[in-house]
């Protein structure tokens, strides 16, 4: 079974679920949710065992679909995050249904499948048309998902903000595509790379197009100054959707960004140095603008939003560091690695939030007070998640940061490195603030928290992933190394 079949199947499964709910409205959300999870898990299993070479794909998709290492990694990534989000939705369902008009969640189980398919296609895209189409599929689905709990004023507000700003960024993106196309005469990444390596190409036009295009993509990955939607939308959206946005959508954005930058920064590119400088500036700014305001947040969910901005900054900085002979990971590899470490820690954080909401608690830091007493295991796991987000060693988060720092230092980008360091230092403050709340016991005499065995299992697995990635990243690295090598060959 080819990878493409799996992707298409996933989208079809989403449609089928929609149809099922429409025809049999009495079907329980549990069944729907479990079916979706089972389907995605099956897809993941099939995907793992499917042949991973382009040749095995149907011929008609070859012009726009590629199956290099990066694509494979992100496809797997998308499947995993989708499963987690579906499961989180199921876990959060009791309180989510309070905010939907009919008390149902059917689309919350089917739309993620379609989104997942869209993200998988984005990962494989070879040209800007495919990127645009897949990206819009994902974005439009997210418009719906963010505003899904529309009885909540927050969710609706988030929906409106995401809609307006998202549409604005789509406009910018298309405008950028237009200019890139104008400058290079092609929409495919390979063609763009080839054209940019040609000195005859008009530099100003190319620069303009690339800049506008990157602005459009920057919105998707929450790069400063296009990040301002993130805190509001993340805070307002239902928690599973927030997790999906902050991990899935961001990863998809980064895979496209990686592809675009691979083209823009190709060997001998006429716009290479400018774009690289832009990345450094924007990355540093993003890391700072994510970290600094986060220090004053009182809502953990909003804090995680800012944290995700800050992490986007590191990822952008990683993208700015091109290959180094002394380093087995390409910048795309580092980004992939970082995202792989980012997944468990962020999802674990949102999982904790969701579980607390499910227990009737709020999302403020003060709601975390005394968590260690009420549920030591959850507190321990959340501590691990926040420690990893802060980048404490022996957790996954540290390695990601270390690679970024190594890359920056290796290229001598000291200014960017110091911004990253300042941002990380500020990060200590707000992550530790939350950790402190969990262990504070004064003035709280609240009953113990309980959560289900599967929840424990998933959270435990994520925590384990954080630790394993933190101390034994070799398997992941070797996967990425092999793949980014293949990717290099592919893109040439």
């Amino acid at each position: 079974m080819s990878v493409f079949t799996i992707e298409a199947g996933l989208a079809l499964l989403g449609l089928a679920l929609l149809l099922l709910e429409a025809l049999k409205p009495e079907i329980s959300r549990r069944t729907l949710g479990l079916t979706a999870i089972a389907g995605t898990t099956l897809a993941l299993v099939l995907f793992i065992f499917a042949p991973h070479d382009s040749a095995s794909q149907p011929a008609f998709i070859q012009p726009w679909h590629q199956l290099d290492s990066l694509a494979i990694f992100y496809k797997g990534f998308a499947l995993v995050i989708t499963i987690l989000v579906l499961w989180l939705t199921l876990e959060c369902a009791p309180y989510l249904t309070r905010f939907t008009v009919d008390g149902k969640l059917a689309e919350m189980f089917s739309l993620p499948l379609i989104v997942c398919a869209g993200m998988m296609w984005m990962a494989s895209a070879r040209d800007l048309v495919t990127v645009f189409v897949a990206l819009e599929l994902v974005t439009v689905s997210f418009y719906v998902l963010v505003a899904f709990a529309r009885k909540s004023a927050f969710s609706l507000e988030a929906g409106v903000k995401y809609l307006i700003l998202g549409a604005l960024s789509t406009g910018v993106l298309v405008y950028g595509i237009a200019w890139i196309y104008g400058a290079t005469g092609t929409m495919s990444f390979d063609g763009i790379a080839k054209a940019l390596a040609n000195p005859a190409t008009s530099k100003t036009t190319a620069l303009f197009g690339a800049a506008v295009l990157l602005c459009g993509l920057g919105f998707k990955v929450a790069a400063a100054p296009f990040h301002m939607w993130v805190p509001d939308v993340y805070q307002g959206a239902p928690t599973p959707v927030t997790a999906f946005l902050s991990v899935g959508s961001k990863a998809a954005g980064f895979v496209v960004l990686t592809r675009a930058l691979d083209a823009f920064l190709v060997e001998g590119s006429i716009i290479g140095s400018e774009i690289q400088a832009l990345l450094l500036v924007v990355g540093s700014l993003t890391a700072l603008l994510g970290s600094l305001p986060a220090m004053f947040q009182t809502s953990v969910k909003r804090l995680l939003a800012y944290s995700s901005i800050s992490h986007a900054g590191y990822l952008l900085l990683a993208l700015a560091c091109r290959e180094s002979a002394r380093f087995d990971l390409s910048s795309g590899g580092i980004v992939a690695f970082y995202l792989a470490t980012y997944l468990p820690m962020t999802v674990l954080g949102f999982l904790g939030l969701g579980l607390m909401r499910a227990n009737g608690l709020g999302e403020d830091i003060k709601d975390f007070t005394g968590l260690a007493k009420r549920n030591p295991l959850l507190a321990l796991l959340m501590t691990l998640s926040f420690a990893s987000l802060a980048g404490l060693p022996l957790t996954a988060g540290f390695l990601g940061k270390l690679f970024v720092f190594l890359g920056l230092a290796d290229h001598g980008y000291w200014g960017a490195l110091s911004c990253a360091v300042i941002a990380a230092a500020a990060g200590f403050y707000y992550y530790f603030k939350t950790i402190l709340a969990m262990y504070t016991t004064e003035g709280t005499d609240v009953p113990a928290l309980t959560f289900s065995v599967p929840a424990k299992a998933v959270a435990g697995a994520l925590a384990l992933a954080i630790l394993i990635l933190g101390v034994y990243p070799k398997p992941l690295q070797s996967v990425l190394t092999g793949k980014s090598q293949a990717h290099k060959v592919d893109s040439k």
Partner: protein
Amino acid sequence: MITLGHYLVVSGMLFSLGLAGVIARRNIIIVYMCLEMMLSAANLALVGFSRFHLVNGLPDYTAQSLVFFTITVAAAEVAVGLAIIVALFRSKQSVDVESVTKLQG
């Protein structure tokens, strides 16, 4: 003589006009209209480039395909967007951008 530059400038002005509207207007529906204007401006640029980038002596139809997709996507976005705006109006009795300022800080 009308050059590609003319089209591009018109497209750019339309794009800027849309942007100005998006920033300046308070009625979300009008904001949304301005967004459609921006998309159309991008389309104009695309079509312009495609006309002047001949492939086999013909306009480049890949770009025009993208324009086609953009228009379609815009339509879908409008549908979803207006639905959200309707939902907003239902809950706030207003489509003013200032009615959504609860999330901040």
